[in-house]
């Protein structure tokens, strides 16, 4: 690791050669930022009387609950994700290899689905409490049992499905850390946990921040879980204002403030570490994992399995039990179409996101000035915005554009074009790009920051063009991060609901849509099969890709 205080000094010399890249960067970010700008533009409109009502009644609640939710999920994902990463990357104990991919499994579980399954198990009328009452002859009020449908419950649910973001990114960071530094720490007599807190964690900070901020953005955007649990968060407030009060503008204004808040957080974090650079040396030798013995090994095993059990095994079993009731009925010909639609959309969208993310991350690294950093930050706000709002931000300008084209074409050629872009799958993929770009960008970014700029400089000074540096040096080193980015977006799109719901073409369904429609009608038994299918399809890339992610550095153990 190297902490240097010169803020990337090679920028200035490359300003001129980077002009082309920077122009493209601006075009790409501008197009992606349009939906966000549409939402921001709502701030220019007059603030309606609904604001007064919100101030007087529920706004404080919305803000407090969302902040508590963020604090809880931030802490939860941090603890779960970093422990999981530390155990599997740095320690060795029986079952480590299985756990290192099993830790990813909860990722494939949509948050509102895990919420339904846990409610099914832990609710007052669920099997657990009913059994307790029957055994001890208790009545309602005779005993204490934590209420799952509460703020605390929502924090647990979201932490359980979101910690894999932290785990994935931090694990990669741990694995890519210079073994020399870690060994030096150990040789200086530091205990393993001291090494963790003094050396490994500070070095992994970009990855931890990237992972936790993804989890937090997803938390802010979550609607299904909090709505089901009756927690009035800022997001449920946005929809209440829109659907209930019929105030789309006020809802958009609320959302704009949410985005400003997220933007400020991103900037604050960036500012706080602007003078720090975290790089590892590229020459690596194999690191020896810390072999856990006795009770330590038992503890590692049980903690690890408990996380996987709670985040995946338990909810998935509940789904399987539900699905076993009516699966024959639900497994019709349509189901194959659903599988195909979901899979291909997720595949296409994840590749698109990756390409754009690599381009942006790299251009930013090589040529960025403050303006470009700001532009990229705006373009990556989409993940914190509820999907429905993104969809509206996409819908309105595109429909406007479509109508203009139609108007011009009718006037000039007497040929009405109708809506060319609205209601197409292309538009849907674009909306996914807007929403999930920051997932791939954060991942690629955190991988890229770990590569010393001096490598770029050497290559550039030897006459390599920026694109050659990218393709010959960065991309190969980044392979793990790239695959991770691909996987994360794939699973995200697979689970994605609100954007798909609004923007999709006629007669086009996905597994997430089918799951949601049945679950929202409280037909969990029927919803379980498509939900399970989402989980299973999400597992495929997890299994395929983790093999290559996991065997990166400890290949022949």
């Amino acid at each position: 690791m190297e902490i240097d205080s010169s803020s990337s000094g090679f920028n200035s010399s490359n300003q001129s050669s980077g002009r082309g890249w920077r122009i493209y960067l601006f075009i790409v970010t501008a197009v992606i930022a349009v939906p966000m700008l549409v939402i921001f533009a709502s701030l220019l409109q007059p603030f309606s009387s609904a604001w007064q009502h919100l101030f007087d009644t529920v706004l404080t609640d919305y803000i407090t609950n969302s902040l508590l939710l963020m604090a809880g999920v931030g802490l939860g994902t941090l603890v779960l994700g970093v422990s999981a990463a530390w155990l599997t990357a740095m320690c060795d104990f029986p079952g480590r290899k299985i756990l290192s991919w099993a830790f990813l499994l909860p990722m494939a579980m949509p948050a509102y689905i895990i919420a339904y399954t846990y409610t099914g198990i832990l609710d007052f009328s669920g099997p657990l409490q009913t059994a307790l009452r029957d055994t001890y002859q208790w009545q309602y009020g005779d005993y204490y049992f934590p209420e799952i449908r509460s703020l605390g419950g929502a924090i647990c649910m979201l932490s359980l499905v979101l910690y894999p973001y932290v785990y994935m990114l931090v694990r990669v960071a741990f694995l890519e850390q210079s073994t020399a530094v870690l060994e030096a720490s150990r040789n200086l007599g530091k205990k393993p946990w001291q090494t963790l807190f003094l050396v490994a964690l500070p070095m992994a900070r970009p990855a931890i921040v990237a992972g936790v901020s993804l989890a937090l953005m997803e938390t802010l955007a979550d609607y299904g879980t909090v709505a089901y649990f009756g927690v009035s968060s800022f997001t449920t407030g946005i929809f209440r204002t829109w659907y209930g009060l019929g105030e789309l503008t006020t809802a958009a204004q609320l959302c704009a403030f949410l985005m400003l808040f997220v933007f400020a957080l991103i900037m604050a974090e960036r500012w706080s570490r602007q003078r720090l650079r975290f790089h590892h040396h590229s020459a690596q030798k194999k690191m020896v994992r810390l072999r856990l013995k006795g009770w330590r090994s038992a503890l590692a095993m049980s903690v690890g399995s408990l996380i996987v059990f709670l985040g995946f095994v338990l909810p998935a079993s509940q789904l399987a039990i539900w699905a076993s009731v009516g699966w024959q009925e639900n497994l019709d010909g349509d189901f194959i179409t659903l599988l195909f639609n979901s899979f291909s959309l997720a595949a296409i969208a994840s590749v698109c996101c990756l390409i754009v993310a690599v381009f942006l991350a790299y251009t930013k690294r090589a040529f960025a000035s403050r303006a470009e950093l700001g532009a990229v930050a705006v373009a990556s706000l989409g993940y914190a915005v509820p999907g429905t709002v993104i969809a509206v931000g996409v819908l309105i300008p595109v429909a406007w554009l479509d109508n203009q084209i139609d108007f011009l074409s009718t006037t000039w050629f007497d040929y009405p074009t109708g809506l060319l872009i609205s209601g197409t799958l292309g538009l849907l993929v674009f909306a996914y790009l807007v929403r999930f770009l920051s997932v791939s960008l954060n991942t690629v970014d955190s991988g890229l920051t770990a590569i010393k700029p001096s490598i770029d400089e050497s290559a550039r000074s030897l006459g390599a063009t920026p694109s050659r540096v990218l393709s010959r040096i960065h991309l190969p080193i980044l392979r793990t991060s790239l695959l991770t980015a691909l996987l994360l977006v794939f699973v995200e799109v697979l689970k994605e609901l609100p954007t798909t719901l609004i923007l999709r073409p006629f007669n086009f369904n996905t597994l997430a849509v089918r799951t949601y429609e049945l679950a929202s009608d409280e037909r969990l038994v029927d919803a379980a099969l498509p939900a399970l299918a989402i989980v299973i399809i999400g597992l495929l890339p997890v299994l395929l890709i983790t093999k290559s992610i996991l065997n990166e550095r400890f290949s022949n153990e």
Partner: protein
Amino acid sequence: MAIRTPSLKSILSTVLIVLAPLYSVASDEVNIYSARQESLIKPLLERFTEQTGTKVNLVTGKGDALLTRLKSEGMNSPADILLTVDAGRLYRAQEAGVLQAIASDELNSLIPSHLRSSDNQWYGLSVRARVIVYGKDRVQANQLSTYEALADPQWRGKICVRSSGNIYNQSLVSGMITSQGIIKTEAWLKGFVSNFARPPAGGDRDQIKAVASGQCDIAVVNSYYLGGMILSDDQSQQTAASKVALFWPNQQDRGTHINISGAGITKSAKNLKLAEELIVFLAANDSQEWYAERNNEFPVRETVKVSSVLESWGPFVADTLNVSELGRNNSAAIMAMDRAGWK
């Protein structure tokens, strides 16, 4: 501008040539934006296609989102019909000016006037009642009377109901504002909310389960959820449903609160005649019976035969307030619920 126009024109014409084959108005098809979920409408649409040969295309989603899509697409929107699951959204669509009136004597004779807009912009297609469900072992039917009586302190800590974010709770309060006025409604809300057994969460079935397991004595839910539980494949749902009974509130005065699912024809509709034909089909006896059979909803006419579950609940007096009113007072209802602290 004089210099730029031709170049823009030439670019456009190229684009048009490329895209032209993609675009066609298929005038022998009907396109629907539906807030009613696929499994509760598609079988009917397939039946329509079978009978008439007209293909029906469907996008489902949330009512307000679909309305926003419809609004922003404007006159070029491909949608012919907007289908929603509550009157408030139809009222909102009407206010937004995206629907058009159709003077259909047939529809007007099929659908009672309080279940459609007064200017023929939309029509109710099925009726959903908000009822009281009570635990048979703890509550006698004669203890119950009206929604208004649920604010009585005798029910302190005994009522379960879902969040005020739910549209049917909003329309219940909305209807009460129309019939009782805002002041009485606010007073009622205070008493009602203080009778909650627990903070509102979950769906209607969750409230019914809570009554069945003894967490609360009564719940306010839509009747079709109870029907769904009675007919469920899931044994635990059947068991829960068997422990509760349904009560029709306000039978001596204005009647039980109802909402509708309904449809209107959009202003951008390419094929008015087919769209109208489809709505008539959905209002016809066969379709009306299907709503009852498939989702335990009530038909819009009393003359239609209903399923055995609905029959077992007996006949009831429904509120005859025009359902437009539910939409008109929706935001006033939400604000009142916010003030009363109904989460």
